[in-house]
């Protein structure tokens, strides 16, 4: 009968009179209608009677005298010489049991770590970025749809809009209202916040610390900072001037200054490029910052690799011939089908140009992280889509606390050599077969702006600038 499973655990307590008034009333009402539970109560009562009847043994008559003979003269005298076997009880209700101070401190530390982990896992988003970007999101989430544009606050009262948020909004399927809003306003329409507010953080001007400075491709989710590496869509070639105008990357860092000589300080981040209505059909673009010991050599290797793979090196690339050895730019057009291959090859290039020589891929560590990226058709995909993680990676990621693991995915796994990575490698090979090099003409193309930077010193190492770094002991 319905409800038996919910009442059954209470039947014994009901029989013992240990239920609250409401619970007792609920059980009684159920028993009035359920013969099965009534018989169960009967059985419980009979079993209790049996158990009690089996416990009628009496102690031997000599026991009392034996106990009295063992007692000391007075309890006070016994208390002066406490027995080690005596167990003075401390009856403290379990609910009011006092926990040691370190337990509270430990719980606080765990809570703080969890909060930090959650905070750092949130990608850099403006206040509007957490919102569903299309009306179908509100429909599927069960929340009310976006209010009319007239209900929105005036643009000048809005908080600054981040480039990524604009990007997401721009790549959402366009509706009539949105198209109308884009026609009348330069900023994309926004929907009300349906989730918890995300503190808006801006890209810090300082160059981010590098977890594995000798070989790493850092991205915008690293270190829990605001994303330094952002991606934008543009119909213009990703020239250094364009990058500078967009404010890509840490503009005040050495590398950022190297590639952005014409940076306009008044432009807020990436907003200007994404908001241009004429850019909506341009291919998606991802900017990656690669830390390596030999940026020029890495850029040259990538350019040669691009020639082998059939990827197009776009104007704006230094091609390994740039004057600055601190940061070299390579702009590539890669078919979407070869994203994974590109990522692996980039990691290999980073490893090969780090350290004394070619670093074995089994031991090298490179981090390739990206924010959510978009495709020209408006499809939005996150890092998990573009970089398929194996179960072992997921487990390691959860063990390491999320963000730290995001910062340091093993190169092995990215190259498909780790356990569980073979399947992805096979899949990428299959993708290569399905997407030949002439896919540039027909398929979707993703533009990668790869900036090779000289590896900065590790965080907190306290080394002098330019000091020789030692390989990290394994």
């Amino acid at each position, binding site marked *: 009968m319905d409800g038996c499973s919910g009442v059954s*655990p209470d*039947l*014994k*307590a009901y029989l*013992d009179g*240990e239920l609250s008034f409401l619970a007792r009333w609920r059980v009684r009402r159920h028993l009035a209608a359920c013969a099965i539970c009534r018989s169960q109560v*009967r*059985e*419980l009562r*009979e*079993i*209790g*009677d*049996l*158990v*009690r*009847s*089996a*416990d*009628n*043994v*009496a*102690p*031997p008559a000599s*026991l*009392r005298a*034996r*106990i*009295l003979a*063992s*007692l*000391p*003269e*007075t*309890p*006070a005298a*016994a*208390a002066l010489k*406490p*027995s080690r*076997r*005596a*167990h*003075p*009880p401390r*009856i403290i*209700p*379990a*609910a009011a049991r006092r926990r040691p101070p370190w337990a509270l401190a430990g719980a606080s530390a765990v809570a703080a770590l969890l909060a930090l982990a959650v905070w750092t896992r949130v990608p850099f988003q403006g206040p509007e970025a957490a919102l569903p970007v299309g009306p179908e999101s509100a429909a599927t989430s069960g929340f009310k749809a976006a209010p009319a544009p007239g209900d929105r606050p005036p643009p000048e009262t809005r908080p600054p809009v981040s480039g990524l948020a604009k990007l997401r909004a721009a790549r959402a399927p366009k509706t009539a209202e949105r198209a109308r809003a884009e026609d009348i306003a330069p900023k994309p329409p926004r929907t009300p916040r349906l989730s918890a507010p995300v503190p808006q953080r801006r890209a810090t001007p300082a160059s981010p610390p590098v977890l594995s400075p000798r070989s790493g491709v850092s991205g915008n989710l690293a270190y829990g900072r605001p994303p330094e590496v952002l991606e934008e869509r543009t119909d213009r070639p990703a020239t250094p001037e364009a990058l500078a105008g967009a404010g890509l990357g840490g503009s005040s860092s050495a590398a950022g200054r190297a590639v952005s000589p014409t940076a306009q300080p008044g432009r807020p981040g990436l907003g200007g490029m994404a908001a241009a209505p004429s850019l909506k059909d341009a291919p998606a673009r991802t900017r990656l910052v690669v830390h390596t010991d030999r940026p020029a050599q890495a850029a040259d290797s990538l350019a040669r690799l691009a020639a082998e793979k059939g990827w197009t090196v776009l104007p704006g690339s230094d091609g390994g011939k740039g004057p600055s050895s601190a940061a070299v730019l390579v702009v590539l057009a890669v078919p979407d089908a070869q994203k994974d291959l590109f990522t692996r090859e980039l990691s290999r290039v980073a490893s090969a140009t780090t350290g004394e020589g070619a670093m074995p891929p089994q031991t090298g560590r490179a981090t390739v992280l990206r924010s959510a990226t978009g495709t020209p058709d408006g499809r939005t995909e996150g890092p998990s889509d573009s970089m398929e993680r194996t179960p072992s990676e997921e487990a390691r990621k959860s063990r390491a606390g999320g963000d730290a693991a995001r910062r340091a995915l093993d190169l092995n796994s990215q190259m498909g050599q780790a356990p569980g990575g073979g399947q992805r490698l096979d899949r990428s090979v299959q993708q290569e077969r399905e997407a030949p090099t002439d896919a540039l003409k027909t398929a979707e193309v993703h533009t990668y702006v790869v900036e090779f930077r000289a590896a900065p010193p590790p965080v907190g190492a306290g080394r002098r600038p330019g000091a020789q770094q030692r390989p990290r002991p394994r």
Partner: protein
Amino acid sequence: MLDDRELVRRTQSGDRQAFEQLLDRYEARIYRMALRATGNPADAEDVTQEIFLGIYRNIGAFVGRSSFSTWVYRVAMNHCLEFRRKRRLDTVPIEDQERLVSMRQQDDPVICASRTETADRVNAALRSLSDKHRDVVTLHEMQGLTYQECAEVLDVPVGTVKSRLFNAFAQLRSLLGGRGSEEA
């Protein structure tokens, strides 16, 4: 007749007769509890003696925050747990265990035999329970403690007592089968 608190107060002041009255009140209950815990009359006697010795020695620490019976059961449970730590129940030979049922001389032999058989079945079922489940059955069903008192003695939440009792009776029900209603 003096209540427990008054007898405790007198015992604390050195009145040995008051403690003997307390002993008379709790001796049988504690002995049965020790017998359930040990499964052996000889060990039960030893444990019972230690329990009352501990009560007598530490009765000065009883300040009355709980009932004296709860305090006594707590002392007894501590001793039983210590006994289990030293020697597990399953090391006791089954033939050494005394039937935990008393037969009055005037009872009909047939009835006595049937009662003994039932008691054997119940005792075997109780022995098959885990220590936690057996303890809560002993305290609640045999000693008559409330859920709250069981929780204080066992140092667990009341909800745990409730769930343990429910699970213990579910096991007893399956172990005893349909014979329970027939014998009762």
